[in-house]
């Protein structure tokens, strides 16, 4: 075996071992690498009230409402299977609307998510507005998929 060939094998073996090690580490940390939980996951985890986490999902159409003080908004975040009501007082991002993907940061208190911060999430679709109109007219428009 020439020295070049030996170095080739050594580098290849090293890279494969490294990839395996990184794969195992990432797999082990899978749960802490996610940025948010969906409503079903959050409910299944039975988190304690003082534990802060991020809740992600779609704003349920028809659930958006304003509280009496004029600042606080309420809406439901859903993943299609479960929905959690959210209360938030503050500035919403421009993309926030019913049916849109959002990520709220806060705590779950007695079944209501008290959000301190709300971020909008958008999907990977990019289209001119006229095309969306045409698709909607012909009934081929698919609403946003699960974020």
């Amino acid at each position, binding site marked *: 075996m020439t020295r*070049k060939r030996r*170095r*080739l094998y050594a*580098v290849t073996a*090293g*890279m494969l071992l*490294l*990839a395996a090690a*990184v794969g195992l580490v*990432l797999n082990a940390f*899978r749960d802490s*690498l*996610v*940025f*948010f*939980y*969906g409503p079903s996951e959050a409910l299944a985890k039975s988190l304690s009230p003082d534990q802060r986490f991020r809740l*992600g999902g779609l704003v349920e159409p028809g659930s958006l409402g304003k509280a009496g003080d004029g600042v606080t908004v309420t809406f439901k975040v859903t993943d299609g299977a479960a929905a959690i009501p959210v209360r938030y007082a503050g*500035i*919403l*991002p*421009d*993309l*926030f609307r019913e049916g849109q993907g959002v*990520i709220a940061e806060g705590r779950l208190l007695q079944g209501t998510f008290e959000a301190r*911060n*709300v*971020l*909008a*999430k*958008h*999907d*990977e*679709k*990019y*289209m*001119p*507005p*006229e*095309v*969306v109109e045409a698709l909607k007219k012909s009934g081929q428009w698919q609403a946003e998929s699960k*974020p």
Partner: protein
Amino acid sequence: MTGSLHRFANPARFQRLSQAVLPWFAGGTVIAFVIGLYLALFGSPPDYQQGETVRIMYVHVPAAWMALGAYTTMALASAVALIWRHRLADLVAQSAAPIGAGFTVIALATGMLWGQPMWGTFWVWDARLTSVLVLLFLYLGYIALINAFDDPERGARAGAILALVGWINVPIVKFSVDWWNTLHQPASISRFAKPALHPSIMTPLLVMAIAFMLLFATLLLLRVRTATVEQRLRTLAMARARS
């Protein structure tokens, strides 16, 4: 395969070849940027959700692609340098690093400017954004490491190993949006699925991608040429000092 590689690894031959192709690459870069920027800024529609902000994508996405592309170039050149001991491969890896770091900075900066109006935040520590920041630190660490030795040969060897080890981060950046929940949306263009981009938005993006690729090739050729000449000068100076 190594035989043909040897042919291009000859520095004199490389200087001659690169001199011939460089004007074509440079000219192509300018033309692609003129067409691409025109299409991106004037010749394409706004997005149905994001409005005019979508135009940031035409710089952000190609820069991010080339940030990964430049690192992969660096890692491949480092592997060739480690295994076949070609000095020219070392020079390619070392010349690619600052260019790739530049693309990474552009991707991060445009991403932050885009995130603030759309998501409502400049920065979050989700898997995609964090792994791209790690990519930038890998570039900077590599540049620091190759310059940390008095003997450039030893610096190149240590840098090549770091470049290879760090390449593990490239698939992590690419697939972070599929493997984990992130704020960043998944890729709009993939090899297997129908692209989620309307053709009127796809075309300027692809032209800009070609422009960024040509820019990378032009800058890389220029830098490798300079590095080759620098190396020759250093060898000559050392030979003179000895005699």
